[in-house]
């Protein structure tokens, strides 16, 4: 066990190191620096957070008199990103986010909801501090204490791709409750497990009070920079806080570096809708001065690891801990807010500017989404796939597409026009959105180059993680243009981006056709092409020509030996744009929209379909493929036998489904609602947007509560509904074999079920 030096009580004049964490406290910002020696240093910077109000000059003067607080002053700022002149606004200092929100609401009421508009109200103070000081998390900096505050010298660059990260002390925390089945807040702590480097520590002796004391002491001694948990936000930390109250230990339960104990929060997590799907995010637990990563609650961490989180934190200027538990859109927005703040543009509290008025005819032309070309259902030989790299963000950057630049008032006769719609694009200023994605695109390209160049597998993995994290942000950048709550989004810019993308894909198709290629399938930013006798080189030449002509990067994914485009399950003659599978010349299988890719597919079905695809992938071409179909049905038979003989374990039977509404709002007894109700009966908090896992035990049972069993209640003796799982298996198998005339009943006959 190693002890670290906490220099928080030293009087530091000057320090060099990496910004680990920061948060506001009593009209100041607390910043934790990780030094080159591995110590952590706590810095405090007196700093004022302000909100702004715009309105009629006399109304602002009147408001200033009403507020009568020190620091209230008139300032000149841009209230809209498209403004060419600054406006006079009222600056009002506030001490924290809550005060900002409360004051803003009072001002709205005072102005009758008409006289005033508010700005910078809900920007996190830690982010605002980073924007104002022009620094970023995990930046290597030199901070000097001056009489008038901290002076920051940046010894790093956001654009750097081979930046150094200090060695971090990482700890994994696990707490087990006394109950055998579903842990509850009322259960006593059975044991606490800590993994720190190669060391594993189990705290299981003494009473609950002793365990809590030992935990706090150990955390203090080990002084980790990063604490990983599984369900730390939804359960572990709220549970510890409740147990601390029970043991009259709550004032001493300090897990962060700041001497403030963990508290029970009365706030609930949030259910929110994204792309038509309800998600749930539990209330995050922030450990001040450390980084808490809830591995169950961080999509970005799951995909890109700590390196990905740090990359996003650096480029979007948002603390790592927040990156880990917030949406990707929030991180992406932070990059935009930085550019706004640096350009004196205020950040609107609410987006009230609506879409420009357009005729229904214009809307018919404009609002058409991306390019698509329906594939012909069935198997196709020797098809090549070309994918544009970050097409939409690239277009947003190159064409300067942003809320304030599309249909700007300052250049109606601009030479830059949106195809089909003839909207003008600003020539005088670069938009906030293009500015915010420029560096992301550059870095993503650099990481790809570095990945290709390095022979060190650990470095390659590092670049891959960082590139993947940037890709997430870029994917989100386009969607946010049309997102209702995006600060600098506007539907017209969204429409314009789609129009440019359609034009690009059409142009690309024409180029391919000129070279004798036939378009088999096209969707959004990808094209599937074939030409009799075409070699890989022909595709590469085409790719190079497209690159030259469109000035956009496009990658050649490879040539498929064969690719199968699948039909709709309800209308067998109609293709589904995103449902296909195929095998590249090098043997790689690519599948989209089939059971192997669905979140609600039980493992047993996923494994079966994967195995069937592997068998089919041995086919060199379409005729060889047909010869492999009976062998793939043999795979299906194997799984049918395993299911029928009840040899499948619970782990392979769980079905995971999202709750699209609160449990009490379900009118029909759908399976996930039944399982959720079982959990509610066990006093588990279940919210809309959460995923529920269950096993189907008897789908036909007249009592709905007996149809499924929630995963938390399952044991090795739990029976399963063989017929229902067989149905799922046959349906998934029929999907991949549908173009060849197989239906689920056919497969049942072939496997001896019928």
């Amino acid at each position: 066990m190693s002890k670290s030096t906490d220099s928080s009580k030293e009087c530091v004049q000057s320090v060099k190191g990496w910004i680990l964490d920061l948060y506001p406290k009593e009209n100041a910002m607390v910043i934790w620096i990780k030094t080159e020696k591995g110590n952590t240093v706590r810095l405090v910077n007196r700093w004022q957070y302000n909100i702004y109000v715009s309105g009629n000059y006399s109304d602002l003067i009147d408001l200033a008199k009403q507020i009568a607080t020190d620091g209230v002053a008139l300032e000149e700022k841009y209230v809209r990103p498209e403004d060419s002149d600054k406006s006079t606004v009222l600056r009002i200092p506030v001490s924290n986010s809550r005060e900002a929100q409360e004051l803003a609401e009072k001002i709205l009421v005072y102005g009758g909801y008409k006289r005033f508009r508010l700005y910078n109200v809900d920007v996190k103070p830690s982010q605002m501090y980073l924007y104002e000081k022009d620094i970023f998390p995990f930046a290597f900096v030199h901070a000097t204490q001056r009489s008038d505050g901290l002076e920051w010298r940046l010894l790093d660059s956001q654009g750097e791709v081979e930046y150094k990260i200090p060695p971090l002390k990482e700890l994994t925390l696990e707490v087990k409750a006394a109950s055998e089945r579903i842990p509850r807040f009322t259960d006593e702590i059975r044991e606490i497990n800590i993994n720190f480097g190669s060391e594993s520590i189990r705290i299981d002796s003494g009473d609950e009070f002793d365990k809590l004391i030992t935990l706090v002491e150990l955390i203090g001694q080990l002084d980790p920079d990063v604490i990983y948990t599984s369900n730390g936000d939804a359960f572990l930390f709220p549970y510890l806080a409740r147990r601390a109250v029970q043991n009259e230990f709550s004032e001493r339960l300090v897990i962060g570096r700041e001497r403030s104990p963990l508290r029970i929060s009365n706030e609930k997590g949030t259910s929110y809708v994204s792309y038509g799907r309800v998600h749930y995010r539990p209330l995050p637990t922030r450990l001040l001065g450390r980084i808490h990563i809830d591995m169950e609650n961080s999509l970005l961490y799951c995909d890109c690891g700590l390196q990905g989180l740090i990359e996003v934190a650096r480029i979007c200027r948002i603390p790592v801990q927040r990156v880990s538990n917030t949406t990707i859109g929030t991180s992406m927005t932070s990059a935009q807010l930085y550019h706004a703040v640096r350009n004196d543009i205020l950040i609107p509290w609410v987006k009230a500017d609506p879409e420009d008025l357009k005729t229904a005819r214009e809307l018919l032309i404009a609002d058409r989404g991306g390019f698509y070309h329906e594939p012909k259902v069935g198997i196709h030989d020797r098809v090549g796939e070309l994918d544009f790299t970050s097409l939409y963000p690239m277009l947003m950057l190159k064409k300067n597409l942003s809320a304030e630049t599309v249909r700007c008032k300052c250049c109606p006769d601009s030479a830059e026009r949106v195809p089909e719609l003839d909207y003008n694009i600003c020539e005088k200023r670069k938009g906030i959105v293009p500015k915010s994605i420029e560096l992301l695109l550059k870095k993503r390209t650099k990481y790809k180059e570095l990945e290709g160049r390095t022979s060190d597998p650990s470095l390659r993995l590092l670049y891959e993680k960082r590139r993947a994290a940037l890709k997430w942000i870029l994917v989100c950048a386009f969607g946010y243009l049309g997102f209702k709550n995006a600060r600098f989004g506007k539907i017209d810019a969204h429409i314009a981006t789609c129009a440019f993308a359609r034009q690009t894909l059409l142009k690309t198709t024409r180029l391919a056709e000129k070279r004798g290629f036939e378009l088999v399938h096209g969707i959004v930013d990808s094209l599937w092409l074939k030409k009799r006798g075409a070699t890989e080189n022909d595709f590469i030449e085409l790719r190079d020509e497209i690159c030259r002509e469109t000035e956009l990067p496009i990658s050649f994914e490879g040539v498929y030996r064969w690719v199968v485009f699948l039909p709709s399950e309800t209308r067998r003659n109609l293709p589904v744009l995103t449902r296909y599978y195929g095998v590249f010349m090098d043997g790689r299988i690519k599948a989209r929209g089939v059971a192997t890719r669905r979140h609600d597919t039980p493992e047993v079905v996923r494994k079966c379909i994967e195995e069937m695809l592997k068998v089919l992938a041995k086919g060199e071409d379409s005729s060889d493929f047909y010869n492999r179909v009976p062998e793939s049905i043999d795979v299906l038979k194997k799984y049918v036998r395993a299911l029928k003989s009840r040899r499948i374990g619970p782990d392979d039977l769980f079905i995971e489904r999202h709750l699209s509404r609160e449990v009490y709002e379900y009118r029909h007894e759908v399976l996930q609602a039944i399982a959720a109700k079982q959990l509610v009966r066990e006093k588990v908090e279940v919210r809309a947007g959460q995923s529920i896992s269950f096993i189907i035990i008897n789908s036909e049972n007249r009592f709905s509560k007996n149809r499924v069993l929630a995963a938390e209640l399952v044991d090795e003796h739990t029976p399963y509904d063989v017929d229902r799982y067989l149905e799922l298996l046959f349906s998934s198998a029929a999907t991949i074999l549908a173009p060849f005339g197989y239906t689920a009943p056919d497969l049942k006959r072939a496997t001896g079920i019928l």
Partner: protein
Amino acid sequence: MLSRLEGVSFGDEVFSSPFGKLNLGHLVFLHGTQRCLALSELLCVQAQLALKEGGLESKAIFIDGGNTFDPCLIAEYAEQLSLDSDKVLENVLVSRAFTYHQLTSLIANNLKPWIDRLNIKLAVISNILEPYCDPDIARKQSSIFFKVALNSLVSTIREKKIVAIGTSLDDQYVHKNSFFEQIAYHSNIIAKLEDHGDSTIVILEKHFANPPAILLNGCGKAPFSNKSSKSSFPMIEGTFLAS
């Protein structure tokens, strides 16, 4: 004083009869199903007809609070009435609101200047309740903004003498909050639409010519588009109830 003759009708005689003409200066609220959208879009076409044909000789504004506006439906109605669909589409002006702030801003700040500039006689505010009922937002705040929007709408209707149609396509928004009571208070006509297979029942919950007590027997043709069957004028049971 409002002219009793000036107003817009749904076109079909049987269907129009319970409503009568939708008069200038009146607010009509339709709720219940997706068919409200079809009806409101039909009115955007009807409004462009000559006065003698039951129209207003006017362009229409469609403020879309639910991103539900369907230009194809407008084109379809235009073709059924043997009108130039391109021209009809040009005469329907659309703006979408994705938040209650945007919807409030459109109604309170933009509607009146647009009416003046384009000499509009018909304004549709579709999904007028939905943005204020977004579960992600604080109801207290949205209630205040709803009042601001509604008061502004009512004053615009009276001052500019236009026909305004408010719709709510899903009755969960009608039943869950007090917004419905507020809009009902200001509405001259309220009709609830209920889908019954291919037919729709219209329940007239409020009518300014109180009480009309119209009960039609049998079936009539209704101006609803049925997208799935491509049949534009499916039969509708002509049961109209007055509250």
